[in-house]
């Protein structure tokens, strides 16, 4: 399916030429798109990749004719979206991020509505409906309200509704978000089938593994095009610069940090018991000596993310900042830092969490993994003392969350998934607010705030209202606030979602440093590579803990092949569980 080369673009169905789009907010004009050009061809999945805020949704809306560009021109099969709105509706199918479904209407009613709105003739409807229902696997659910479908099923129904008018151009805004890995694969297969039938498809994503599977990728960063071409070609630029080093059972984080400081190394990433690294352009290949490791680095096939990081660093002319070690009190904890025993929580007759037992030792980074609705968040809430368990116990820092919640809370820090700091307050005011909430006395509070501002690189932003900070800096501020009271245990709920890869790396380096000083970290994430960064993982599915162990062990136990990913293991694990519990 991939065209022979970057130059050999088949007849371009959509041409994007120098699009500029500005938004006027209270803080002045924000440039969302800054001269973006690109193309989409029939029969091809074009990826639109980049972190949140890169301009992906804005570009899709410009193509769909929902926003007018300030400069530049778009042509969709010869139509101008800014003028031919009505005609555009006949050729373009657009699925917004929230699917555009009516949750109080059933699957069948949603389909009928969109068939009416997209001028599908009554004669062809029965065939068209049964075809799309078969394609989306929703034939058995036509009478179910769309609001009662799982994330993956909603996504497929949204796609089916979009396909009703038989569009030639399909614009999908982050279809892979909020969908479990199994449904994501099915969705991907659906879309590949559509491309095979000659549709021009735009798939926007913040996940780089999704981008790597596209035929062509338009990679955006800060409203500019970072790369436009087949992902293979993009990744090939990194050949000879990607390596893997086995770390064995040594102190992985110390090894990783030393390697990151070695000359010529621009990126490191812990992956189970090995370390991946990327070297600078033209740098000599690293050796065990230069890295200070026992094993020698082995060259390996670069991944899309490696190339992305390298390109981003060139583009921004910088490197992943090495954080100063934040001073965190490392108090010896006797016994496990976090311990659950038969932890269960029911909502009515529904068992959200069912007999979950695990322990996390001091200084460990423990990942809690699972699809949406599996019971991950409920477990998390019980561990933070936000929700009482129906049965079983949860102990944090040796304190029972039921009976000694206040003692436990004094020892734990919590960083919520959404940015939970008052956004109208400045960075300094936010820190001061949190210091007072944690009951620090004034002198101690002032000292720790000054430290946090220095450690977290917030000096330049102290007087900026935190709502105006970029996402990566907001996460950094959230973390700084969460550790002001020097907690021994840190709970992180989806800490890096939406953050660009460089900010993610920087974030994880901070976590490393804290873990080294004895802080226990419990983290949830939907990034599979982040899961591999953890010391140990617990996989939750349908309320039960279906796997527990270090990432490599889980990977090898559930998936075959050396290059199997954790996601492969995850999909296999879920399939096995469903098969065993179907009867």
């Amino acid at each position: 399916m991939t065209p022979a080369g970057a130059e050999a673009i088949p007849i371009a169905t959509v041409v994007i030429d120098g699009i500029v789009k500005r938004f006027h907010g209270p803080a002045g004009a924000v440039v969302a798109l800054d001269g973006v050009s690109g193309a989409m061809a029939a029969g091809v999945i074009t990826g639109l990749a980049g972190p949140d805020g890169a301009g992906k949704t804005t570009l899709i809306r410009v193509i769909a004719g929902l926003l007018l560009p300030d400069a530049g021109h778009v042509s969709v099969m010869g139509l101008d979206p800014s003028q031919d709105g009505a005609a555009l509706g006949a050729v373009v199918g657009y699925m917004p991020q929230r699917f555009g479904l009516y949750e109080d209407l059933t699957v069948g009613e949603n389909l009928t509505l969109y068939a009416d709105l997209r001028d599908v003739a009554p004669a062809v409807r029965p065939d068209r409906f049964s075809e799309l229902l078969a394609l989306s696997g929703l034939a058995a659910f036509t009478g179910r309200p769309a609001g009662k479908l799982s994330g993956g099923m909603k996504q497929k129904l949204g796609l089916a509704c979009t396909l009703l008018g038989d569009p030639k151009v399909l614009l999908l805004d982050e279809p892979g978000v909020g969908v479990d890995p199994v449904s994501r694969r099915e969705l991907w297969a659906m879309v590949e089938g559509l491309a095979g039938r000659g549709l021009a498809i735009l798939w926007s994503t913040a996940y780089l593994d999704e981008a790597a599977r596209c035929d062509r990728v338009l990679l955006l960063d800060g409203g500019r095009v970072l790369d436009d071409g087949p992902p293979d070609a993009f990744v090939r630029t990194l050949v000879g610069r990607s390596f893997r080093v086995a770390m064995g059972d040594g102190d992985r984080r110390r090894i990783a940090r030393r390697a990151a400081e070695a000359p010529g190394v621009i990126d490191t990433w812990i992956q189970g018991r090995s370390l991946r690294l990327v070297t600078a352009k033209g740098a000599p290949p690293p050796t065990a000596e230069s890295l200070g490791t026992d094993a020698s680095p082995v060259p390996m096939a670069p991944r899309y993310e490696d190339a992305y990081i390298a390109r981003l660093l060139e583009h921004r002319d910088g490197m992943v900042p090495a954080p100063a070690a934040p001073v965190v009190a490392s108090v010896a904890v006797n016994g496990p830092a976090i311990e659950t025993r038969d932890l269960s929580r029911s909502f009515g007759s529904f068992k959200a969490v069912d007999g979950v037992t695990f322990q996390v030792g001091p200084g460990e980074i423990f990942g809690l993994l699972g699809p949406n609705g599996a019971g991950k968040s409920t477990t998390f809430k019980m561990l933070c003392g936000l929700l009482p368990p129906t049965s079983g116990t949860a102990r944090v820092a040796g304190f029972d969350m039921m009976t000694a919640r206040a003692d436990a809370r004094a020892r734990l820090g919590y960083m919520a998934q959404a940015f939970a700091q008052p956004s109208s307050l400045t960075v300094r005011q936010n820190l001061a607010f949190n210091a007072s909430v944690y009951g620090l006395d004034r002198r101690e509070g002032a000292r720790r705030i000054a430290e946090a501002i220095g450690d977290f690189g917030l000096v330049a932003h102290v007087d900026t209202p935190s709502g105006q900070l970029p996402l990566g800096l907001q996460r950094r501020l959230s973390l700084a606030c969460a550790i002001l009271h020097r907690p021994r245990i840190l709970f992180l709920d989806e800490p890096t979602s939406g953050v660009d890869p460089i900010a993610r790396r920087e974030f994880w380096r901070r976590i490393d440093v804290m873990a080294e000083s004895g802080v226990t970290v419990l983290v949830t994430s939907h990034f599979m590579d982040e899961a591999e960064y953890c010391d140990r993982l617990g996989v939750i599915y349908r309320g039960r803990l279906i796997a527990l162990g270090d990432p490599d062990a889980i990977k090898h136990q559930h998936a075959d092949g050396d290059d199997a990913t954790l996601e492969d293991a995850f999909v296999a694990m879920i399939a096995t569980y469903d098969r065993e519990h179907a009867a």
Partner: protein
Amino acid sequence: MNPRRLSGFARKEWRQMLRDPSSIVVAFVLPAVLLFLFGFGVSLDLRDVPVAVVVERPTPESMGFFHAMAASKYLTPIAIVDRRMAEEALRMRQVQGIVVIGETFSGQILTGQAARVQLIVDGTDANSARLIEGYVQGVWNTWAAQLARERLGAGAVRDAVAIDLRARVWFNPAVNSRYFLVPGLIAIVMTLIGALLTALVVAREWERGTMEALLTTRLTRGEFLVGKIAPYFLLGMGGMAAAVTLSVTVFGVPFRGSVWLLILCSAVFMLVMLGIGLLISTVARNQFVASIAALLVTMLPAVMLSGFLFDIASMPGWVQVITHAIAARYFVAILQTLFLVGDVWAVIGPNLLALGAMAVLFLGLTVLRTRRRLE
């Protein structure tokens, strides 16, 4: 306008409306509650008002006046010997007024002088105070006239009554205020359905992200708006019919106009309300803001400034000017006329014209503000 797109979209709107329990509550349950509340509970008439009566010297005459008050269905006299105790009772709000029948009362009557009765009224609620004043005055007038007839012969009646007779034309206690309130309530009910419910419907599409999907289909602006209006128009007219039926059957309010005129006027008023609701919803794009705005712009003025509860003619001049911007004002006037008087074109015509102009204005603005883009 493509009939299939329009009917498909309107059908979706209708289904959403029926499946949303809040729309049924607003359209049928809330109106019924309001009607029962205003029809039975709230009344601008007072009944059995407790009044302390201090009789300083019991005589046949003073007791006669006391019994005359007891016979009135508006007053409940309570005999209290001491004036200070009566004042205490007024302060404790146990009574709403004090009638002092002085020591010289009988003597004055028997000698043909003007007899003096002191009335002290709790003025906290000015409206009630005036009513109580009127009731006591009414009892006094009747009693005095009767007394004069008995004692002094028919010829002296004119003189005896002339002393105290004061006509109270501003409010006639014999007229049931329910007759005014219930027709006005129908305007409130339709404001609820028309503006409050529709204020949510466009904002909801924006909030749930479905607007983006709609904008990329072939649905036109006209189809979108008609599809939004039609179901709520039907619901509003249904609510109106239910409220009118309740008024006539349960509350016994007379209906003296013609039904077709009621339907015509209601339809025009409904369009004004739908226009305002949709305009708010289109501009706000946020359900919370839209519902607060609809409450402030339509509901509150409809209750306060439409003449439904408070007489417009007795408002300050500048407030009276403002009431002309309130659609409910015209509709309340039409309703009260249709129910209590009949098809008086001189009243209905101008009011209906004003409503028609407002419907065109708000629906037109909604059409102008409905965009086929996100900005």
